[in-house]
């Protein structure tokens, strides 16, 4: 029994020690991969537009970047940042006023136009053509909001991730997908015979990096400064051209 309490005490102090020290000086980034080409894993390394941009920002801050593929739920609950699992999240997160009540966003770094993709054999050419049809969207995205606001009388089905939506598209469960242009364009590129991109809708919404609401003002400020510098010196465009 003695030994057990001793072990417990050691375990607890180790845990306390670990939390207190919080790892090295690397900037820990939370993301939700795969969401190509924004974030994905290639040969065991995380990369993609979000990740590489963030890496450049970490460079500017003089820190290494450590990627934690924690998933969308811990990020969208704010828990990943509040609990200190990571300092910042980059996961194609659309900036909305509602979200900004509970987390802070960096300056926008990417404009997320919406687009409509249809199954090649559906014969549908625009959003109005979805009256009475099934339209796939991704949960909690600008695409979902746009579809609901401009609903042509379709059944709008929300999926957790683009993979699920495209499986549903292939299965004929939905006739089209309304979401950010990035994953839609990527899908058409890879499956030119199965799907067509028929419409795009410019929205005023964009992606931002997310940090916790309180106690991250300094980080946010330096990230914004680094981002501005990267845009100015052309590094941003260089990374952009690598991925789009």
């Amino acid at each position, binding site marked *: 029994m003695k030994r057990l309490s001793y072990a417990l005490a050691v375990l607890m102090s180790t845990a306390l020690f670990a939390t207190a020290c919080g790892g090295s000086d690397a900037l820990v980034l939370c993301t939700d991969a795969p969401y190509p080409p924004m974030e994905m894993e290639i040969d065991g390394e995380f990369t993609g537009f979000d990740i590489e941009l963030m890496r450049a920002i970490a460079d500017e801050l003089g820190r290494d970047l450590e990627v934690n593929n924690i998933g969308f739920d811990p990020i969208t609950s*704010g828990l990943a940042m509040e609990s200190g699992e990571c300092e910042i999240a980059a996961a194609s997160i659309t900036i909305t006023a509602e*979200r900004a009540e509970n987390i802070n966003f960096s300056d926008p770094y990417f404009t997320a136009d919406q687009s409509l993709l249809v199954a090649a054999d559906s014969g549908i050419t625009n959003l109005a053509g979805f009256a009475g049809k099934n339209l796939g969207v991704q*949960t*909690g995205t600008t695409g979902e909001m746009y579809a609901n606001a401009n609903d042509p009388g379709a059944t709008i089905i929300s999926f957790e991730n683009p993979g699920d939506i495209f499986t549903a598209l292939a299965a004929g469960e939905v006739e089209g997908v309304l979401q950010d242009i990035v994953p839609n364009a990527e899908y058409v590129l890879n499956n030119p015979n199965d799907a067509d991109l028929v419409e795009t809708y410019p929205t005023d919404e964009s992606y931002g990096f997310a940090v916790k609401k309180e106690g991250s003002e300094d980080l946010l400020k330096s990230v914004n400064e680094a981002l501005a510098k990267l845009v100015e010196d052309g590094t941003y465009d260089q990374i952009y051209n690598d991925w789009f």
Partner: protein
Amino acid sequence: MYGLLGLVVAAMVFFADWEQIRKSFFNVEIIKSMFPEVVTVGARNTIIYTALAFALGIVWALGLALMKLSSVAPYRWFATAYIELFRGLPALITIILVGFGLPLAFGWSIPGGTLGKGAIGLGIVAAAYMAETIRAGIQAVPRGQMEAARSLGMSSGTAMTYIILPQAFRIIIPPLTNELVLLIKDTSLLFVLGSTPQSKELTKFARDVMAAKVNATPLTVVAVMYLLITLPLTYLVRKLERKAEAEKR
């Protein structure tokens, strides 16, 4: 030892960042914003999916159990293969196969949207588990019961229906309750099928609010909702069990 445990609990209470917990898990504004939909949509759908899946599952499980005990070898083979397959696969994969695999392969999909696909997908899995429970229940009824019934001139089907199964089901009330409670929680896997605003179950409902508000409070709310569903249910079953026990005497 208990002293140490008390100390650990006291330390956790003392060192916990209550302000942080309140902010992340008990945001009153968000709690308010979730009602009444969390009940009228979320809880309602969770209960409907569970009830339908359980109903389908138990009927199908009974068939499987009888096949497994059958003297006809191919019936036994089929039941064994079915049970091993669907007990071995993660429920999530079975749901995806039912929801997307069927239409991909045959161009035909189960009607009824999430309700139809979800209930059948979960029913298929639940049947595999419950079939073994029912089989065990049937085998737990003393052999003499069947022999006595047959010697009174009952056919084996009649004896099974009126003598063996009622006793078997009485025996397996606790494990069947387990299965029902598991099924309630497995409905949270139905998110993969996609959802419309009216077809969300509790977990999906919470995750959507979570994504919109960037706060974990919705998880607390639905955790309480799950308990509000399961606790009265298990209480009811305990009463049922006691009643069955009393009748036996």
